[in-house]
């Protein structure tokens, strides 16, 4: 072992065993970098104010959803504009399970996080598996529009079903979170509620990111890639299209459900209107800006999209022609945010199709060969 390490010193891509080649963190810099990112992420809990931390926590939850969309759209190539629908199913399952049994809306009072998290994922996965037969019959843009239809149907159901979702304008309380008997969505003795929830979401994100990375390099992941690249060819070499499309949709929806369950724990309330077309588009934007068929890209994209409002809210200080109030002249912050959002999607697709992940790879390769530029 030591000798193999010694021979690898300075030659990071010389592998002396198959397990080295297949390792997730196959080089020392990668190990150090991931460890560094984790340490920084943990340190943020204590060094960042609660407002920003709340955004980061939301970013973690959205990142789980983005990884899910990347599994079905990035890895398996099945375009889905219906991600918001599966997020909604997860959110409502978790909220109903953990809700107050005597409240205005449905609730069963099971507040343990692992239980409602898995139930939310499970319900969404079930819905995904039910929708998957459509994906088996339809291809490309037909599938995109049918999944878009799901969003509208879901919104209609949740608006009408007021026992479940509360009045359309007010919504219902979000899931209540207890971990091993202690409430973690109220201020604890040493940490504030936002800090506790940030830690929870960070841990869950790391677990799910790891699971997704492992899925992607398994037999299933290779089947997904084969379907994405040419589904007929995949079928010819023996990939069961129906089975793997169902698996892709179910796994992706599981992730969406988990994301939905976590998404509103901090704001504590949500309405049926949250799960609209814009949410689906945001998830698409996350994976396109982050990087298609990459896990780290999904996380980067999710954090980027979540932090975008924060960045634009700083703009008026720098650019005086942007006004902060909605009634005044000039462009408002909200308008700038929406425009940036559209421009970013267009810009990334035009100039950097591999997304933030691609930029990262270019930077890495530049320094790998530094000072030589080739």
């Amino acid at each position, binding site marked *: 072992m030591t000798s193999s390490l010694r021979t690898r010193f300075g030659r990071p891509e010389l592998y002396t065993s198959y397990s080295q080649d297949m390792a997730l963190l196959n080089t020392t810099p990668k190990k150090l970098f991931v460890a560094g990112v984790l340490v920084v992420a943990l340190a943020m809990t204590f060094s960042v104010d609660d407002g920003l931390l709340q955004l980061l926590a939301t970013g973690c939850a959205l990142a789980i959803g983005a990884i899910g969309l990347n599994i079905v759209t990035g890895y398996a190539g099945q375009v889905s504009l219906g991600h918001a629908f599966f997020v909604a199913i997860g959110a409502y399952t978790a909220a109903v399970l953990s809700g107050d049994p005597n409240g205005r809306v449905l609730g069963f009072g099971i507040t343990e996080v692992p239980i409602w998290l898995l139930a939310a994922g499970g319900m969404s996965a079930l819905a995904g598996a039910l929708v998957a037969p459509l994906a088996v019959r339809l291809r490309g843009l037909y599938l995109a529009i049918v999944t878009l239809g799901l969003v*509208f149907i879901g919104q*209609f159901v949740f608006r009408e079903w007021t026992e479940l979702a509360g009045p359309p304008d007010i919504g219902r309380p979000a899931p209540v979170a207890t971990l091993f008997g202690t409430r973690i969505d109220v201020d604890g003795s040493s940490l504030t509620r936002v800090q506790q929830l940030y830690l929870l979401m960070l841990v869950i994100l790391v677990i799910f990111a790891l699971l997704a990375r492992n899925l992607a390099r398994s037999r299933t992941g290779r089947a997904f890639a084969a379907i994405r690249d040419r589904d007929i060819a995949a079928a010819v070499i023996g990939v069961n299209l129906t089975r793997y499309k169902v698996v892709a949709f179910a796994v992706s929806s599981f992730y969406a459900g988990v994301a939905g369950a976590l998404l509103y724990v901090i704001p504590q309330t949500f309405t049926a209107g949250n799960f609209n077309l814009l949410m689906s588009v945001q998830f*698409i934007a996350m994976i396109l800006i982050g990087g298609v068929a990459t896990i780290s890209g999904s996380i980067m994209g999710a954090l980027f999209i979540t932090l975008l409002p924060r960045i634009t809210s700083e703009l008026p200080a720098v650019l005086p022609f942007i006004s902060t109030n909605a009634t005044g002249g000039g462009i408002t912050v909200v308008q700038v945010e*929406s425009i940036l959002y559209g421009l970013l999607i267009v810009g990334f697709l035009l100039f950097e199709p591999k997304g933030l992940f691609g930029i990262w790879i270019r930077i890495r390769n530049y320094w790998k060969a530094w000072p030589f530029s080739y």
Partner: protein
Amino acid sequence: MTELVQCLVRGLGDGSVYALLAFGFVIIFKSMGVISFAQPALMLSGAVLVTYLVTTVNFYLAVVLAAAAVALLAVGVERTVLRPMIGKPVFVISIITLGVDIVIRVVVNAYIGLDVRQVGAPWGLSTSRLVGVEVQQRHLIMFVTTMVLVAILFAFFRYSRMGLAMRAVAFDQEVALAQGVSVGFVFALSWAIAGALATVAGVFVSTGAGVDQQLWIIALKALPVIILGGLDSLGGAVIAGLVIGVVESLVATYGADVAPWLGGEFSLVTPYLVMMVVLLVRPYGLFGTREVIRI
């Protein structure tokens, strides 16, 4: 009986709006192979432009001017944003149009403000008698205008030199190019036609309720229509548009009597439900061409 006739006329009127929008989608799809999610923004900008133009010129002239302006805008979008993407996966191009849609709508929304703007159509909400039943004139006008526009476009595709070129590009872009057809011009022309049709549709939609920031959502109903008719079928777009309009109107009128538990807004999702049911039986829509797939 009165109710039924009114309901059918309203359905045909709304359906012709969907048909116009869907026609634009299908023209773009046939030439470029892309679904343009920018149509809602084009429709909105057309309607808003008319609300500004009617204050100075005659309504009909305003519609023509707005249609021309939006056609130019559509060509501009095609030239600047979509042309560099030719050859890339169609899904990526479609998502780009989504980004364009967001940008255009933000700009247009700034010109709408918080009030409801009026397009000032001369017929307004006035009614006339059809087989002894009071029906709104605007629905009849929508239907007739749409049929005339569609007939003109069909004649254009069938008999004109440029129409032949467009059909050739829809058949095979490279072969068309080899025969001397300017494929780039065909792309631009298809976007221009789609933009002009979207403007007319936008005006029709807003004759009843006026223009506000939510108007664009109606354009999304053209998506189930194009899927139902088949993405590459112009006739299918028209028929599916009318079918969806009538079904929606029937459900809105009679849904509350037949199945009150479905709630009052059930008609809003019927287009999507009809689309899904039909797709399970016919995966390429009612009139779409079955894709031949090779390895």
